């Protein structure tokens, strides 16, 4: 379950990480089970990632993360791999929406400037702050509505809960 304060180990990447390197196009039309999707996460950018990622790890990147195709798997493969939070200077718009709607917490700030791979950062969603070894970075707090989506694990479970279904 998602926490409003989350501490995790960092995987650090640069600008313009596109959806093809996050989740290659050749898998998008195969209906792979979650653990197999996780095995391909970031395959064409960092082959070590899928082997060594731990539950709760945090991906921290530069600008325009998730640019390219609208495929929702580019979010869900990271979620299935155990990533707890995504932080980037900016996200491609559809990726940003997909992330929240798939229940993966997402933060826009420049934390990438204050952290090196393998270090820990703490994200406080209530205060809208990321604490890094070399400074604190603010982001606009998420609305209660979005918090609700994340707590329920994504948009569809959220809507079901809200409407009192199952």
């Amino acid at each position, binding site marked *: 379950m998602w926490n409003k304060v989350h501490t995790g180990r960092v995987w650090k990447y640069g600008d313009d990480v596109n959806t093809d390197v996050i989740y290659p196009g050749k898998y998008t039309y195969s209906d792979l089970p979650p653990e197999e999707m996780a095995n391909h996460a970031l395959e064409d950018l960092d082959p070590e990632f899928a082997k060594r990622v731990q539950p709760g790890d945090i991906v921290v990147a530069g600008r325009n993360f998730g640019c390219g195709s609208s495929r929702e798997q580019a979010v869900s493969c990271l979620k299935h791999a155990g990533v707890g939070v995504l932080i980037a200077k900016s996200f*491609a*718009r559809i990726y940003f929406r997909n992330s929240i*709607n798939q229940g993966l917490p997402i933060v*826009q700030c420049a934390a990438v400037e204050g952290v090196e791979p393998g270090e820990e950062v703490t994200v406080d969603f209530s205060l809208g702050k990321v604490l890094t070894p070399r400074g604190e970075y603010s982001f606009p707090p998420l609305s209660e509505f979005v918090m609700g989506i994340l707590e329920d694990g994504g948009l*569809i479970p959220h*809507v079901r809960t809200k*409407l009192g279904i199952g």
Partner: protein
Amino acid sequence: MGLTFAEKALARKAGLEQVEPGQIVTVQPDKLLTHDNTAAIAKIFREIGVERVARPGINVIVLDHVVPAATEGHATNHQQTRRFVAEQGITNFYDVGEGICHQVLPEKGHALPGYVIVGSDSHTPTAGAFGAFAAGIGRTEAAAVMATGEIWLMVPHSFRIVVKGQVPRGVYAKDIILHIIGDLGADGADYRSVEFAGPVIEEMSVASRMVLCNMVAEMGAKAGVVEPDDKTRAWLKGRTTVSYEDVCADPDASYERVMEYDVGDLSPQVARPHTVDNVVPVTQVAGTRVDQAFIGTCTNGRLEDFEVAAGILRGREVAPHTRLLILPASREVLLAALAEGIVTDLVSAGAVVLNPGCGPCLGAHEGVMAPGEVTVSTANRNFKGRMGCKDSEIYLASPATVAASALTGEITDPREFL
């Protein structure tokens, strides 16, 4: 501090006095636009477990992508959409032949100033030409809007693009927006709301403003908008009985960027394969052999576009090795073009007229290309494979440039024929 258009439109819908960029608000959109993907969305909607669409009045459903159906699969998809429409009592349904969703939406009075519109199509921002805040969303989200009647939206940062100067002969809205996209890049306006303003925009027809807003998606923008004026109101007259209220940016609004473009020296522009920001003056690619010329789509399939094309092609003949495809954006546009004799002019010149819809633009039917072929098109995307063949090339240009190119059989500066 004043508010930008996007801030004001979203604050108003969310019932808030003030919002800031980055803030997430929950709104009840005025309209939800879906097309041939309605059947897929309805499937997700049923998985949620809801029986009835929360606010069926906001649904606007237009079958446009592959119409009439090209295969049994497409036909079944349309059938499922019609059943969903009947079952849910959705009244704003426009079946095969009515036109492209982004054209039909305003024609039927569903795109009004101050509205917040979401649509499961990336070119939903087209409705910004009427002073609406209009953004594309995913299928899952569209299903959730059907189930709940609401959606979360992030308040975007805003760009203000001021266009001035005397627009030269042979230069149109398409050339202006291609030039801007070439300048800013394919992600140059990612997640931004883009406000178009200045004397050139004020002078522009509503149809030309739609060209600008349609193409903001090609620089990553969430929405594009032109402030409503007398032209907007005249265009909307008789199309709706709903009273609407203009939402305009405050003069002291705070923009992330304000840009000024003087188009006084602009020449006709062309986007080369395979990205929309790969833009050069037409003179740089003039002489490229053209197999197919295509005038239409939600970008440039309106009456003024065919008037310009007819002005160039009337009394002449399309080059023998070139196919010219004409695709009015809606039944209304087709009827107007028929009434003006434009269809006769174009067909006499050798054009093939396709029924209103998305047609060849997305490469699913009607005008698919062969390996090695070149199309010059008035559409909004030239991605590899977009028109059904990954080994073909698409150049994007204005209707005038496409018409002139059809005539000579090679990419041609339209000013030679004006």
